[in-house]
């Protein structure tokens, strides 16, 4: 491995891959076999964090940033005047193994620009994964990109070596896609996704009968949407997200605030702010859907198409539905507790267990870790002190904001200044 050349390529191809936000390294069940290297059975590990606060878990690189497409939102688009490079299969294998041995990473995240055609590109990605698994006996995590338009046969093979496959739909609506990436069609993304979904179902079913059935993409599939590049509102974004969770059994949908990289008129100007707060609110909504028993239509619907920026989506929902509160912390069931603003699932677990031993009061709840600043308006407990005033939603919101220092207060006041 020539050090200088690899170094140069790594800089270019890591830089080009960084806008893909997927970083998960959990959910697989690949154990170390035959005293090989690596193990992907446990929970994911973030080995480091960059200065933007994002985790570094996998070696995330492109195989090449040569690309035949010209999608406006993408740094590696054909018309962009940037340095191009391409890794050899062996180079990626060597880097992965050597980084892994030093405990820098959990595994490899390999994506690529499209060169020649979809199959040719996919073949190379699969070749890297195959070499790692079969020649290096590598049991760490591998995340491969599904290249839109790749053949079914290649997608099947990819799943045999990879823990996770993903294809990014990037633009939340078909209309936006047509505008920003005229060469691409929504169907091209969907096809490999469907193939992988069906293979996962089939391999799982077979494994129940024949134990030696090989593992197939145990970490499932994920996708990503760019936020703030093509004018969609939060309602549209979360509807799309919900659609993909429901119909394609996705493990995760990632939301990536658009980082301006182009002077193209169709896109936000270079220098405009990355919508990080909005991205955060979308993730919170995603969590409410997946872990807190909310239906997406409760949070976003025709009447409420935008998430509040100043309060989290659960609080925002609760303020619109004051008639459901207050609930009694000592008797309410799990599903109801999960809907109280300021209660996370960990607190819910602790409350459910602790109240078997005694009735809980404010002091107990505070020590357990409940965010009472928000929760106090929505619950009663074993205490004669509770909110008796008949407060309006606006009043409650005001009181909560008054007593909190949101980590986003700064960016929020900037954004508000724009309109004042």
């Amino acid at each position, binding site marked *: 491995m020539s050090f200088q050349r690899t170094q140069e390529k790594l*800089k270019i191809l890591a830089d080009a891959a960084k806008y893909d936000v997927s970083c998960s390294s959990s959910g697989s069940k690949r154990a170390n076999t035959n005293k090989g290297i690596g193990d992907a059975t446990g929970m994911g590990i973030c080995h480091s964090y960059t*200065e*933007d606060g994002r985790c*570094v878990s996998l070696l995330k690189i492109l195989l090449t940033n040569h690309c035949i497409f010209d999608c406006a939102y993408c740094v590696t688009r054909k018309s962009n005047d940037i340095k191009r490079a391409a890794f050899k299969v062996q180079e990626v294998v060597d880097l992965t193994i050597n980084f892994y041995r030093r*405990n820098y990473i959990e595994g490899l995240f390999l994506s690529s620009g499209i060169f020649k055609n979809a199959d040719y590109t996919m073949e190379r990605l699969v070749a890297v994964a195959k070499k790692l698994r079969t020649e290096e006996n590598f049991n760490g995590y591998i995340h491969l990109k599904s290249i839109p338009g790749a053949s079914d046969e290649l997608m099947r093979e990819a799943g045999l070596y990879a823990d996770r496959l993903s294809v990014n739909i990037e633009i939340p609506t078909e209309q936006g896609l047509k505008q920003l990436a005229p060469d691409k069609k929504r169907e091209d993304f969907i096809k490999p996704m469907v193939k992988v979904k069906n293979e996962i179902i089939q391999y799982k079913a077979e494994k129940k009968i024949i134990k030696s059935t090989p593992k197939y993409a145990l970490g499932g599939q994920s996708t990503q949407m760019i936020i703030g590049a093509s004018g969609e509102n939060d309602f549209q974004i979360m509807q799309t997200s919900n659609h993909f969770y429901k119909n394609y059994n996705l493990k995760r949908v990632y939301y990536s*605030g658009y*980082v301006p990289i182009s002077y193209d008129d169709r896109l936000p100007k270079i220098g405009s702010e990355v919508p990080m707060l909005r991205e955060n609110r979308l993730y919170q909504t995603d969590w409410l859907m997946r872990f807190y028993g909310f239906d997406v239509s409760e949070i976003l619907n025709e009447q409420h198409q935008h998430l509040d920026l100043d309060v989290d989506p659960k609080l925002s929902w609760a303020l619109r539905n004051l008639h459901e509160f207050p609930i009694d912390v000592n008797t309410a069931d799990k599903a109801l507790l999960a809907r109280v603003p300021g209660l996370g699932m960990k607190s819910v677990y602790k409350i459910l267990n*602790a109240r078997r*031993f005694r009735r809980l009061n404010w002091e107990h709840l505070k020590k357990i870790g409940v965010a009472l600043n928000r929760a106090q308006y929505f619950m009663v407990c074993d205490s004669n002190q509770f909110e008796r005033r008949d407060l309006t939603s606006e009043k409650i919101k005001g009181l909560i904001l008054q007593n909190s220092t949101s980590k986003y207060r700064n960016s929020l006041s900037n954004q508000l200044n724009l309109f004042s």
Partner: protein
Amino acid sequence: MQSQTYIYDGTFDGFLTAVFHVFEFKLKTVNIQNECVQQHGLFSENETITTDEKKANRVWVGLKKQLSVRGRFQLYYAFLSEKEGIENVLLDYIRYAFTKTNADKDFAHPSVLKVAQIAKMVGREKHRMEAFVRFKLTQDEIYFANIEPDFNVLPLIEKHFKRRYADQKWMIYDIKRHYGLFYNLDKVEIIEMQFPEHFDFTKTSTDIFAAQEFEFQTLWQDYFKATNIKSRKNMKLHIRHVPKRYWKYLSEKLPS
């Protein structure tokens, strides 16, 4: 009434032996202290406890009947925190556990909550060490890393590294507690080493480490820089995830 102080040898078995004595003599007020950090009370009577595996086991077997697996883990994790006075919190926890089944889930009980919270801190440190260990290849083909964790987490991370790096020799050394783990391709041993005086653990000396080590460190630093998105800079979040006290042994955080 004179209070009794039990001095034990700092091991978990030693602590459980002390607990055994507390129950045997039905002591109400007692103070259990690690011999390394012992302080003499003016009006207390000190007794040194000799670690007895059988007695320790009896306590542990008894706890198995009372606590869930998670509760037992929390007990052990909290013990490894080495926090001052943790023994007495654990004693209270154990006493409570023998009066109620599933006591480990009574999060409104002060000692139960305290143990759960400290166990969580230790668990977080364990997870951090699994992430922040940075191996450097020595000239003898051993992947070496030094750590300086807040809590004594080496016993907790052994299994993780053994399973993961089954085909390479490795060593993880706790320079604060002066012992380490060494995996010799067959099993993990506990070792104590003498390092030269003024040995700089933050540097990668060419006398000890393999030549290619510098190349991979450089590649890793380059990767770390290239994967950062400048317009999203958020140092507060960065430092929350990677607190500054860990930086000195993370090659990507060293000034190049």
